[in-house]
């Protein structure tokens, strides 16, 4: 197995863990909002959904958006800069994503 294959295999594992955490969050969110989702049938109506920070769906949506940043940071840690050029490109994209998110939330 080449270094690149090994790197990709580890990244795949990281992606899978992130997705599993998100899916568990989705299940819990739906359980917490069972009345909205199924019983009242209002699962799609924007007016019925509370967008406040305490709303159980919001942390899950945030978690979903964090997945690419987690993966790129994972790449930086796992690859340890063996391919310097690619490493620098990944650092720049990670910084861009983090600054982009901070600009929205601050």
């Amino acid at each position, binding site marked *: 197995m080449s270094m*690149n294959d090994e790197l990709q295999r580890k990244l*795949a594992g990281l*992606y899978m863990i992130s997705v599993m955490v998100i899916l568990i969050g989705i299940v819990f969110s739906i359980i917490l909002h069972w009345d909205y989702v199924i019983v009242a049938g209002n699962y*799609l109506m924007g007016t019925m959904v509370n*967008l406040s920070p305490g709303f159980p769906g919001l942390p899950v*949506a945030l978690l979903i958006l964090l997945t690419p940043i987690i993966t790129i940071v994972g790449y930086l840690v796992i690859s340890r800069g063996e391919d310097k050029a*690619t490493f620098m490109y990944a650092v720049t994209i990670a910084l861009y*994503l983090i600054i982009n998110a901070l600009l929205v939330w601050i």
Partner: protein
Amino acid sequence: MDFVILIATTVFAGFVGSILGLGGGIIMVPVLVIVFDFPIISAVGTSLVAIVITSAAASSVYLKRGIVSLPMAFRLELYTVLGATMGGLSAPYLPARLVAISFGVVLLWTAYQMAKRSFSKTKGLSAAKNDNRKEWGFEQVNKNSRGKGYISGISAGLVSAILGVGGGVIKVPIMHLLLGAPIKKSTATSAFMIGITASAGAVHYLGGGYVNPMAAIIVAGSVFIGARIGAVIAPKIKSDYINLAFSLILVYSAIRMFLKG
């Protein structure tokens, strides 16, 4: 019944998205707007969150198989993001109709080139033959082609920000036609990249309160299933068929551009 339509549509969007390296927004957004009365801005925001899941679900399979080109993904992604930032800043000053029509023409030409590869059996251009070159690596691409790829990446980001076109429709042809990557490597790498692009955009929609979190997580759960099925099936599909299906998506996108113009 609505619930069943939503689940079925998003499972299908995830399936198509992961096979062709697209986000699936091309399917999800119209359904959310037409069937579920979502405001367009909320449909796009919700769809972007789901695209991140499509990308993660498909990428975890493609990475495990070692068919994602990380050097190509990170380089192209940076130039696309640069272009998108430029596009976001210059959008108010550019003639959007002219850009839409010009881009429609480019999409049609690209569709023709992709379809030609499916049918060309004699000149060694066939997608199947191209895909047999297992040894393809980004480091083999010459500087001239890389330069063209980077410039196209900037243009792709620019057009994407001005016209709201999904990244995969542009990135796959750049990798396949300009950089010479096999079609399956191109779609797998695109599936990896679209998550990064979508998350950058979705943050703004979420911050602005345009994402319906409950709908987003239901849609995300469905696209996950579709994307996983698509990623598992993708290697078994003939490259020529993937090329042809992609050409049809390009023609559809071109028609949308002409209507916009």
